[in-house]
């Protein structure tokens, strides 16, 4: 039981717990806040995986933008501050079953895979992951096209969102 493992377990616990709160809590604002906790945990995981850049981007994009958007949406789409009544469908148990089945199936598939419990070669020292990532994103041999497509997609989404939510009055 080494230090990283302890870290991992704590983070994993936080992630799963907060995720459960996200899907179960009645108060939607709380759900959004729990989501933030989850996202933060995921960021920590990235840090554990030596993907510092992704960790920071996770915080910037998810917490800084998406989560706040959620809170806004929740605030804008409610008649009173409190949420009364159950927040789950009548058939929630069925979906629970389905989710459980999915998890089971995934687990079963994974454990059947040979590389399931491999461990990482330790991180090469002086390996500039960020620089590599940057090159990969903009070098024509690598991923410049998907990157550009993603940016176009973002633009389209931006325009579309403005158009859809625009209040014609």
């Amino acid at each position: 039981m080494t230090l990283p493992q302890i870290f991992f377990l704590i983070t994993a616990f936080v992630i799963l717990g907060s995720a459960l709160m996200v899907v179960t809590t009645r108060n939607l604002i709380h759900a959004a806040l729990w989501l933030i906790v989850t996202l933060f945990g995921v960021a920590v995981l990235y840090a554990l995986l030596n993907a510092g850049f992704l960790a920071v981007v996770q915080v910037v994009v998810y917490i800084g933008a998406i989560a706040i958007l959620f809170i806004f949406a929740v605030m804008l789409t409610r008649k009173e501050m409190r949420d009364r009544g159950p927040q789950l469908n009548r058939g929630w148990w069925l979906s629970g079953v389905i989710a459980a089945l999915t998890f089971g199936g995934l687990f079963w598939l994974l454990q059947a895979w040979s590389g399931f419990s491999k461990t990482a070669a330790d991180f090469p020292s002086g390996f500039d992951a960020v620089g590599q990532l940057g090159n990969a994103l903009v070098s024509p041999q690598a991923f410049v096209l998907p990157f550009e497509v993603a940016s176009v997609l973002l633009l389209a989404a931006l325009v579309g969102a403005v158009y859809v939510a625009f209040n014609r009055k």
Partner: protein
Amino acid sequence: MNFWNNPVQFISQWLTGVFAGWGMADWVASLLIQLIGVVVLASMMMVIDIFLVWVERKVVARFQDRLGPNRVGPFGLIQPFADIIKLLIKEDITPDGADRVVYNLAPIMSLMSVLLLWAIVPLAPVIFGVDLNVGALYIIAAGAIGTLSIIMAAWASNNKYALIGAFRQVAVLVSFEVPMIATLLIPTILARSMGMNDIVQAQDVWYILVVPLAAIIFMITAIAELGRTPFDLNEAESEIVAGFHIEYTGMKFGLFYAGELLHAFTFGGFWAILFLGGYRLFGLENLGPLVAAVILFAKALFGYWIIMWIKYTLLRIRIDHMLAFNWKFLTPLAFVLLMVVALMNAILPHNNMLVYVAGMLLSNILLGWIVIEILRVHSRRERERVEGKNQMIEVAHR
């Protein structure tokens, strides 16, 4: 390895020795030392924060042609402590209908988001929390948490004014983050790294001389991020009583207040690091890490002073003007500047420093001039349009 050359290293080795003497597993020891470091840094910042209260009050007094605190202690130096005591002994109210947990969490997060920033500040070549290789982004990330704290506070205190203030603040933050990121990328391009320490090391010539426009834009966005005048709509007293912290009293409010002050100081510091050469001052930093730290603090205070200067000189801007200013002016300008700098950086020779700096500076000045010209033409057209309208109105009235 003596104390004066590398205090942090020195102390940490000494502590490692001590803990080892206590028979501690060394990973525990290292963890402990890390924690100690964090605590020390954070508490140091808070202590500085206390004095910032005094600084702020003195400076604003000078700006407003007053004396400022001068009763308690020499030059009123003890005044902040008196303030703190006052805040501590005030009643700590939590309104009903407030969301208790979130309500109490918000101020802490607000101060936390500021303290987080100091993790990547290089006080000296060898004194820094962590030399993060994505420091520039980290600044934005911490800012995001600040935003979050404001929303939490506003929502939790279940108050319309607070909510409005939060909405405004969030609108401002989310929109002004864009040009801020763009300007953060400019020193990154010049220094070929996002790490704060590298950026400082790369500044043989202060970047404010290389890319003055970027410095200006960063300062503006920083002020917007701080929510200070002229961008202080989140707590515009005359409109929404105190904005998001309307319901807070006592030390919770104190935390917000301290957070704001420290935030300003911190951004002064980042401004200094990104554009004023951080802890570097004509080789003085080589005298020793502590000197370097002092230099950095001096520069940070200078930036802080500029922020205060603007705050106590200008008036508040209307929200729509502000957003228009950001989206229609600042953001395009920032992106154009980013492109220009990248282009010049590719074109100019790196071996000849003089030519490089001169080229950059000229391109900046040229760009600024063009922008001002465009603004002039545009504003003239606007004026004519408005006048024309007024004339028509007059005609209609006749």
